[in-house]
């Protein structure tokens, strides 16, 4: 006990605890979600049935009773389990209100319900499947290569540091700072909303892992200088200098010019 109490304030302990906590969460999560990829692509009969029930309740008013689409929503035949998982688990679907685009929010359905709905949609027609944990493993990916691919394929909309940006008429490319590897992968293979599809043929899984590794590196990148100003680059920094710093200089100049009492 003395050994522990003597060292518990060591900064290394905090790191260890964090790693242990992350590991515990990761193991629990993979235990829950590991079953998913195998089942989602095929989908057990119960899952498909449950999914259909959930679909009819929550989705069919826009996407049609047979997922054939309607005036209010596109067809879901052939979009695949990955599209359902991306849209529903990030809370983009069901749509809260019609607008320029669906925004991410607190998801309505839990992990099992999403898996069931994914299985149902996947049972209608083949489409991109939910990635396996092997597909998502970016531990051996080349971050620098990922950076090159990100700047060629992603940065035009999501900004070089993944901060997102504006599209036309109120649409926007979202900020990637909260995106998980699974969401990144699913977005690339399904092309949600305005985003084009980056298929596994034109951007192989190895390259997707590199892009994921780059985004994860951006998410973890420290900001030693403090205020990152949204990592928007020289425009934001210049504005800060002109407004805040110059105001301070002008204040100092005024003080110098005022006569003492």
């Amino acid at each position: 006990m003395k050994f522990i109490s003597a060292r518990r304030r060591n900064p290394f302990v905090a790191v260890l605890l964090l790693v242990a906590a992350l590991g515990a969460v990761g193991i629990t999560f993979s235990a829950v979600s590991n079953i998913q990829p195998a089942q989602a692509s095929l989908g057990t009969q119960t899952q498909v049935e449950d999914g259909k029930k959930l679909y009819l309740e929550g989705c069919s008013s826009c996407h049609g009773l047979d997922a054939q689409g309607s005036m209010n929503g596109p067809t879901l035949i052939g979009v695949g389990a990955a599209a359902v998982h991306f849209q529903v688990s990030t809370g983009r679907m069901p749509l809260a209100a019609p607008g320029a685009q669906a925004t991410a929010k607190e998801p309505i359905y839990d992990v099992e319900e999403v898996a069931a709905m994914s299985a149902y949609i996947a049972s209608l027609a083949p489409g991109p499947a939910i990635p396996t944990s092997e597909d998502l493993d970016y531990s051996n990916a080349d971050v620098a290569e990922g950076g090159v691919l990100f700047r060629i394929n992603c940065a035009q909309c999501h900004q070089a540091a993944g901060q997102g940006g504006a599209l036309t008429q109120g649409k926007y490319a979202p900020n990637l700072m909260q995106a998980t590897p699974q969401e990144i992968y699913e977005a690339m293979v399904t092309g949600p909303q305005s985003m084009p599809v980056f298929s596994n043929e034109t951007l192989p899984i190895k390259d997707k892992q590199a892009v994921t590794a780059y985004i994860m590196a951006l998410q973890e990148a420290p900001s030693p200088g403090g205020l990152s100003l949204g990592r928007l680059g020289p425009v934001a920094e210049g504005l800060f200098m002109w407004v805040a710093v110059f105001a301070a200089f002008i204040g100092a100049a005024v003080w110098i010019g005022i006569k003492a009492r």
Partner: protein
Amino acid sequence: MNEITPMSDENGEVGNDGHSHAPAKLGYSPVAEIPHRLRVTDTDPKAARRAERQVASMFTLSMVFIILSVVAYVTIDKFAVVYIPVLGEVGASNVVLGLTFGIAVFLIGAGAIQWAKKLMPDVEVVQERHDMVSEKEDDNLAAANYERGREESGFARYKMIRRSLLGAMALLPIPIIVVLRDLWITPPGENPTEILSTTLWTKGKRIVSDGTYLPVRPEDLPVGGLVSALPEGILEVQEEEHNLNARGKAAIILVRMDPEQIRSQQGEGWDYNGILAYSKICTHVGCPIALYEQRTHHLLCPCHQSTFDLADSGAVIFGPAARNMPQLPISVDEEGYLISTQDFAVPVGPSFWERDRT
């Protein structure tokens, strides 16, 4: 020339308020028109001593912070991180060094200003300046000099000299203009217009994706897909030419849409089963664009918001661009890879003088 001339009257101490103030021994006296207000430190010796102590303590405190900054530099681990509200997690060493040294410098400056404001002589003085206009006699002298120079040089008399000098001066800028024209390094035998109007794309040139440089098959590209692409062999050309001009001109994007959604193209059958190839270079001022919305088929330039409709011949539907995005006709070769069937029909990128008005 500016010089500070204190105005002094006979006794050197009477201002408009009738009080005796500015130190007479320095020979300063207030200007009659400017009302003079005494400072607390002028009238109250205690306040003056307080001000003295205040300035001295600022300088002393500065010494403390200078020493602290050296101590911080030596003792704080340069990778240590500290949490500060608003700023978040920042480097501890950076923050402490910046604060201690910054405060030290600020205190020296602030002390000097306080010293000047509270203790140094405080008298309104007039700084006399010359008129901006020259004296009349200087004007006359300059005019006379010019006249004399004209007379003595015989500029009006020696007609031949005058004309030959004017001719030489007129020709002098020509070399500069010629050099400017050739800032563009033109390979021998080619003119700039031709270089700007042609790219690496030729009949049968394979299309490779940017970044991976692998050839693209039509079945690789799903509906809604986007690929930034280049001609095969681009890296070799780039290396040979030692510049990125070839890449800049030949950069394209491949998009695939449902063939029924393609309303028009720049040429009959220039797509391949719904796959369209367009230049990646904006026709406004040449920004590379791949900001493609797969649902609306709009291509948006982030620089000035020019928007092109790729389902409608790359027509400009918004923004300052004046020309359609040039389309590249494509097909597949016998091995099933996407190829270009000819070069762009119009020059890519922004306009230039010699470009046809299309």
